C-alpha cells in the first residue's frame, strides 16, 4: 500500500537503522533482527527486564503471588534478626518485549509487544485486557489493541492495529525519521513503553 501516510520498506529500514545506531550509542538495548534483504522480514526489537514498585494504576497493583505454588508455603524461614538490614519497598519484576515491524499491506510500521509479570518471558503474561487498561485513559478497545500472531515469529503478541497509523504518519510528515516520530506517539499505549529523549535528534 502506498499514498499519504505510508512509508516504504526502504524508508522503514533506513529509519530503523538510524534508530538502532542511536540505541547503540546510548545503550538502551534496541536491535535489528531478521532478514533485511526481504521486505517485511526485518524488525527492530528490544526485550527488557525491570523492577517495578507498586504504585497506583500500574501493572503490578495486584501482586499476583508470582508463579503461585502451594509448596511455597513449606519454605518460610525465620532467620536471625539482622539489625543492619534496612526495610525495602516491595518490587516486582516485569519483562517486556517490543517489536517494530513493517506491515506490507498497510505500508506502515506496526508495533507488536508482550509483557510478563515475572522474571521470565513467557510466565504470567499481561492479558490483553490489562494492557488495554494500562493505556492512558484506558480507552483502547479490542479493535485498537488486540492479540495477533507475530508474522515472523509465529507466536501470539499484543499489537496495536495499524489502521490509524496513516493519520499519525501524516501528522509527522516533516520528520526526518518517521519511524521514531510514530513510535513515540504510540509507545504509551504499548505497556507504557518509554523512548529516551535522545531519539528526538533523529527526527530533526
Amino acid at each position, binding site marked *: 500500500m502506498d499514498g499519504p501516510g505510508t512509508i516504504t520498506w526502504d524508508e522503514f529500514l533506513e529509519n530503523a537503522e538510524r534508530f538502532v545506531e542511536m540505541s547503540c550509542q546510548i545503550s538502551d538495548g534496541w536491535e535489528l533482527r531478521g532478514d533485511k534483504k526481504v521486505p517485511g522480514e526485518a524488525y527492530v526489537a528490544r526485550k527488557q527486564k*525491570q*523492577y517495578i514498585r507498586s504504585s497506583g494504576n500500574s501493572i503490578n497493583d495486584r501482586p499476583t503471588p508470582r508463579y503461585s*505454588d502451594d509448596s*511455597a508455603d513449606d*519454605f518460610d*524461614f525465620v*532467620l536471625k534478626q539482622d539489625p543492619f*538490614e534496612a526495610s*525495602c519497598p516491595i518490587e516486582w519484576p516485569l519483562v517486556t518485549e517490543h517489536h517494530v515491524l513493517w506491515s506490507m499491506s498497510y505500508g506502515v510500521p506496526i508495533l507488536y509487544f508482550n509483557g510478563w509479570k515475572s522474571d521470565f518471558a513467557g510466565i504470567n503474561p499481561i492479558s490483553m485486557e490489562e494492557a488495554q487498561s494500562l493505556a492512558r485513559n484506558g480507552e483502547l478497545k479490542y479493535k485498537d489493541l488486540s492479540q*495477533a500472531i507475530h508474522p515472523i515469529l509465529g507466536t501470539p503478541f499484543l499489537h496495536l492495529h495499524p489502521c490509524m497509523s496513516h493519520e499519525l504518519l501524516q501528522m509527522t510528515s516533516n520528520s526526518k525519521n518517521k519511524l521514531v516520530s510514530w513510535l513515540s506517539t504510540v509507545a504509551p499505549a504499548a505497556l507504557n513503553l518509554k523512548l529516551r529523549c535522545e531519539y528526538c535528534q533523529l527526527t530533526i
Partner: protein
Amino acid sequence: MSKFVKFSKLRSTTDSTFWAKFVELKIDKFKLDEKSISIWGSYGLQSLNEDNSNPLTLDFTSFNEDLETVDNSLSVLCCGRMINTNTFEAFRQINPEKFIDSMGKDVINSIQDGTALQSPWKLSLFLVLAYSDLKKYKFYYWVAHPTPLKLPEMYYEESPKSINEEFAAKHVEDLCQGFLQLDSRTKNYFTVLLSGDKMTIVDLAAGVKAINTNSEKQSQSYNEIYFAFYDPCATSNPGWPLRNLLCLLCWHCPTYYFSKVIKFISIRGNKTQKSLVFALKSKQYENYKCERDSLFLSNLVGWESNLNDKLGPTIVNLSDMMDPTKLSDRAVNLNLKLMKWRLVPDLDLEKIYNLKCLLLGAGTLGCAVARILLGWGVNNITFVDNSNVSHSNTVRQSLYSHQDAVKHKHKAYAAKDAVLNIRPSINAEGVILHIPMPGHVVGESMLDSTKKSLEKLEELVENSDVVFLLLDSREARWLPTVLCAAKNKIAINAALGFDSYTVQRHGTRNFTNPISPDLETRNPRGMDLGCYFCNDVTQPGNSQTDRTLDQQCTVSRPGLSQIAAGLAVELLITLLQHPLGIEAEALVRRDNISPSDTDLVGLLGCVPHTIRGSLWNYDTHLTITHRFTSCTACSVPIIAEYKNRGLRFVLDTCNVPNYLEKLSGLEQILKRPDLDELCYALDNTSDDDEDDKKI
C-alpha cells in the same frame, strides 16, 4: 543523625536461559554431582528504570568458564557459587544459616588474607542454593549475599549528597569515564583519589595503602579519598555491598576506620549519574581492637527475600515456556479469542474449554465431531467405540491413517492418539465398550461383560457434561438416551441416511412430571422437547438381523457426515452460550425472530430442536418433537424402572420381547379402540406443521 546506618538488601533475577543451560549441564556434565559450581552474575548497566533496584542477573553466560567469551563491558560482574541438590528432600533439609556460614567463608578469608584488595569481586560473592525438578521444569532457588552479621555501628556524619553536590562537573565526568573504563569485575569496588585538581581511580589495595602510609607519615598525598562501590539499590540507604567493604576497611585500616569520617561513593545509574556520597563515622568503641578481632566471629547473613516478601526460596515453574506441548496451546486459544474480541465479546470460552464431551461412536461422525470440538478449543474428549480401524475407514473417518488400519488399532485408541497428535495438551481418553442394545439378546455367557459395560457407561455419562450419540444403529442410541435422561445430561444426537441427516438435542427430563406438554406452544422449552425415540410407536429392536452387509453399514454420501457433525457441534455451542442453556426455547419458524426475545435468541442466535436436511434437494427443515409421555427411552416409567432395577432392567430390555412397549404404556395406547381417530388427529397436526414450513 542518631540512627546507625542500615543497608538495603539485594535482589537477583534468573533468566530462563540460566535454567535452560543448567538443565543441559546437569544432564551432560554435572550429572549427580552435588559439589558447588562457580558461576557468574552481573548487574546490567543498560537499565532504563533507574528509580528501582537493578537486580543481579543470572543467565546462560553465568556458567561460562572463560569470562572473555562474552562482552561484559556493560555490566558489573560478580562471582558466585551454586549448589544444586539432587533431591527435593536434600534441598529441604539444608539449614540456610549453616549453609551461608560455610559457603560464605570465602568472603571472610579473602578479607583476612588481603586477596580481596586486589580482587574486589571476591567481596561481592553470592551463593545459590537450588533444587531442579528436570521433569516438571520446576526450579527452587534461593540466593544469598553473605556478609558478617556483626558490624561496628556506623553513623551518618552528614546527609547523603548526590555526586553533583559533592564534585565539580569535571570530576563528575571523570568519575563516569573512569568507572566505565574499569574492568567489569573491578567495577564492584574501587578507590577514588582527589589530589589537587586531579581525580584518579585506583584499586582498593592502593586506597588502603594510601591511608596506611598517610597515617604513618602524617602527610597527605591526596586531598580526599573516597571508597566506591557499585550499588544496585535505589533507596536512600546504602546498598548491601557496602557491608563487606566496611569489614575490609575495618580489618585492614582499623585506626582510620574507628577514628575518621570515611567517604563512600555509592555508584548508581548506568553512567554513575545517580550516584550518592555517604560520609560515615564509626561509633566510639572503648576497645576498637576487640571490635575488629571479633568481626569475623559472628555468623553470616544475607539471604534474599522472595517476591512474596518472605525468607525462603523462589519457586518457578517454567513448563509453560520449556515444555513444547504447552507452547502450541497459546496459539490455538488465540484464534478463538479473536472471535471473542472481534465479533462476540461475551463469548464464554472458559465454559467451552472446560466442557467434558463424551463421544459415543468414533466412526465417520465421531471423527468429524471431534475435529470440530478441537476447533472450538474443547479440552476434554472421551471416545467410546468397540470396533477397529479397517482399510475402508481411513478415507472417510478423518482421524485415522493408513497405519492405524494396518495395525488394526481400536478406533477409540486411534482417535485418542490422533487428537493428541493434533493438540498435545488436550485431555483425551479412549474406551472400548460394547453398548447393550434392546433386542440384542444377552445370554449367560455375556452377562458379566454386559454388567461391566453398563457400569462403565454409567460412569462415563455421569462424568460428562455432554453426550454425543454418533452410533451406527438406532438401538445403540437407546441406552445412552435413557442414561442422559436419568442423569440429566445434555445429549446431542446425529444420524445419517444415504443423503439425509438428522441432528437434534434431547429435551431435559424432570422425571416426576408424567403429564403431556402443551402441544400448542409455539417454541417449546427444553423440558418439553422430545428425544430420538419420542416419535416412535414401536420399541427399538435388532435392526442388524436379516440384513445384508451393505444394509448393515451406513452408506452415506461422504460430505454428509461433515455437515451433520458441524451442525451437531454448533448446535451444542449455541446452546451453551444461550442464557437458558439446554432449556432454551426451540426455534421452529425462521420468520419474525425478534433479537430481543431472549428466551429464544441467545448470544450466538437461536437453538432449534431438530435439524433435518437432505442433499437431494439441499433442503433444511427445523422440526420439533414434543416429549412423549409413553416414550420407550425417556418417559417417566422407563426412567423410574431404570433407577430401581438398573442392570436387571437393561437385561429385560435386551431379552424380553416388547418389554419397553409394555413398560412405557405404548402397548396400552396401541390397543386403544379410538387409535384411528388419534392417528388422524396427529396426522393433521403434523400436516399443519408441514404447511407452516412451506410458507
